[in-house]
């Protein structure tokens, strides 16, 4: 078959998949974009074109800037902690001789719980402390809950990679006189890096859309110190019923998520190129 004919065939074969993809992603995206250019409060029959006015408002609105800040802090701190603790847990697991299956099962437990259940549990844990009502403490308290819940995800990824590293490499390093720390830094960690980056990307994208813990535990308070971007968009989509403004906020969330994902993927490629 000629190259041109093959290309055409490929296009034909891909067309259904592409159409589905366009249907489920591009169509809603286009709808959201259109909606973000309107002042629409369907409940009261308000529907007018306002152009980019919502975006102008969002860039001026201190509440939106605050939501960006809260989301950034939450994402960076919780994902960083999850990676560190996840690797530590994986290393501990890998050295276990007995009860390993039991330990893995226990480790997974927090991750299996529905978010709302986790939130309710932490609500009772935090109740005597009053942290959820104190501006400097509420966000750290939520981060702890999130880390508790999602460290197992990172740990499992890291553990799976760890046990696939042939033990011979570490043994050879030991024979050459490398310390355990040096072995970890120069052999284990570089081999783990691509997996960790991928897992961290998943987690980052999740954390950027963080919603359930805040929704249940603080409602974004106190003083909006736990109001993430998603909660901000929710407030306008479902409480003030400003669909246009909520859509504009959601579009900006999408832009942020896309940029972060793109930067992250580049980092993954670079790290894979090194190994």
């Amino acid at each position, binding site marked *: 078959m000629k190259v041109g004919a093959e290309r055409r065939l490929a296009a034909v074969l891909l067309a259904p998949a592409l159409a589905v993809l366009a249907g489920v992603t591009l169509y809603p995206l286009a709808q959201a974009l259109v909606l973000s250019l309107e002042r629409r409060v369907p*409940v009261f029959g308000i529907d007018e074109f306002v152009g980019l006015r919502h975006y102008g408002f969002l860039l001026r609105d201190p509440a939106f800037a605050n939501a960006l800040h809260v989301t950034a802090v939450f994402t960076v701190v919780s994902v960083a902690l999850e990676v560190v603790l996840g690797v530590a847990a994986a290393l501990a697991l890998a050295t276990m001789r007995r009860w390993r299956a039991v330990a893995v099962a226990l480790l997974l437990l927090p991750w299996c719980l529905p978010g709302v259940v986790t939130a309710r549990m932490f609500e009772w844990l935090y109740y005597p402390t009053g942290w959820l009502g104190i501006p400097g403490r509420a966000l750290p308290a939520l981060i702890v809950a999130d880390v508790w819940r999602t460290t197992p995800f990172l740990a499992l990824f890291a553990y799976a990679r760890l046990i696939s590293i042939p033990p011979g490499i570490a043994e050879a390093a030991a024979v050459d006189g490398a310390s355990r720390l040096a072995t970890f830094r120069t052999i284990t960690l570089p081999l783990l890096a691509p997996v960790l980056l991928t897992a961290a990307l998943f987690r980052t994208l999740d954390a950027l859309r963080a919603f359930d813990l805040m929704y249940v535990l603080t409602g974004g308070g106190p003083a909006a110190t736990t109001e993430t971007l998603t909660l901000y968009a929710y407030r306008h989509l479902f409480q003030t019923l400003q669909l246009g403004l909520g859509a504009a906020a959601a579009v900006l969330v999408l832009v942020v998520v896309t940029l972060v994902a793109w930067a992250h993927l580049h980092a993954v490629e670079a790290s894979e190129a090194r190994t």
Partner: protein
Amino acid sequence: MVARLGGLALVVLLFAGCAGGDETSGVELVFRHSRMPGQSDPLPGLLREFERDHPGVRVTHEPLPWTADVQHQFYVINLEGRTAGFDVLMLDVIWAPEFARAGWLLDLTDRWPVAERAEHFEATVAAAMLDGRVWAVPWVMNVGLLYYRRDLLDASGFAPPRSYDELASQARAVMERAGDRRLGGFVWQGRQYEGLVVNILEELWARGVELVGTDGRVLVDLDGAAAALGFRRRLLTDGISPSLVTGADEEQTRREFGAGRAVFLRNWPYALRLFESPTSAVRGRVGITALPGGGALGGAHLAINRATRHPELSWQLVRFLTTDRAQRAIADAVGLHPTRPRLLDPSLRSIFAAARPRPITPWYQTLSATIQPAFSAAITGVTPPREALVTARLQLEYFLGDQWQ
């Protein structure tokens, strides 16, 4: 997509039509309401009674989601879709104007005689009005009130406070006298949610400040509102209100006071039964009085879905569920209070009469959701009160344009 959904709906309707044709029993009314608290739900009994009086009519009642926020969401989605999935609906006391403006409710003005409206507390009827028309009938009533430790106040020779300043100074004196570091002064709902708006509104009313003016403009008296928030902030910094207040809702403050760790508590009437239960640590030592400036009106109304196919029967059901007898049955079974003064325990009557509705506007939900972070920022000291209020006002002006009323 829309066309396909429409097609699907048509098919469903056709089948529903067939099923309806097979039934000989006639009409089914659907009543949506939130779950009654406690064990002895009086509704099934009342509805069976209604069915006995209306042969051929079957009433199914379906509970709503648990929290007011999710209930509101449920209604918006279903009513905006113009589905007649239910005929009679329970409304939180702050929703009637919004739902009426949206065109979801049946206008009850001509069905409900003026003389009968006068039987109810004025605030409850006022909360059901928009543009001079009535859209819902008061069903059960709630009002914010002040709980105090009678034993502690008596020991210091205090009468229940008439102003928040007096409350603060009494709390301070009682705390000093008790010398117990675990005893807090005044606990109230300071978490960032609807309850905070209610508490701040009550503080504003005691100072004669309005959140929404008669001309429909919001936060005109910035200085008055800022002073009210500043006062609440000082309660916290002076240690009269414990720090847990900024994260507390009704239940947390109720537990705190119920454990004997506070002199004063602002809460709804439901807590009284719990304080007087046999296992309560404060049993027999709790007094109640009206809040200075009046407590916020809570409770629920019954309304009729405009898309109902049985407006007359639905109205019969609303009338039946809001009769003296039904209100009394609900009060006896689950402790939700009637909306008619004459049905109320005389000791509660003056407190209930002082109830004031929250701003009656279709935009209440927007107002509240926008102002909650501002109030929270002010009482936690994150933002100076005036600055927080100016920000909220700018946001509200953007959301509403000139469409306040």
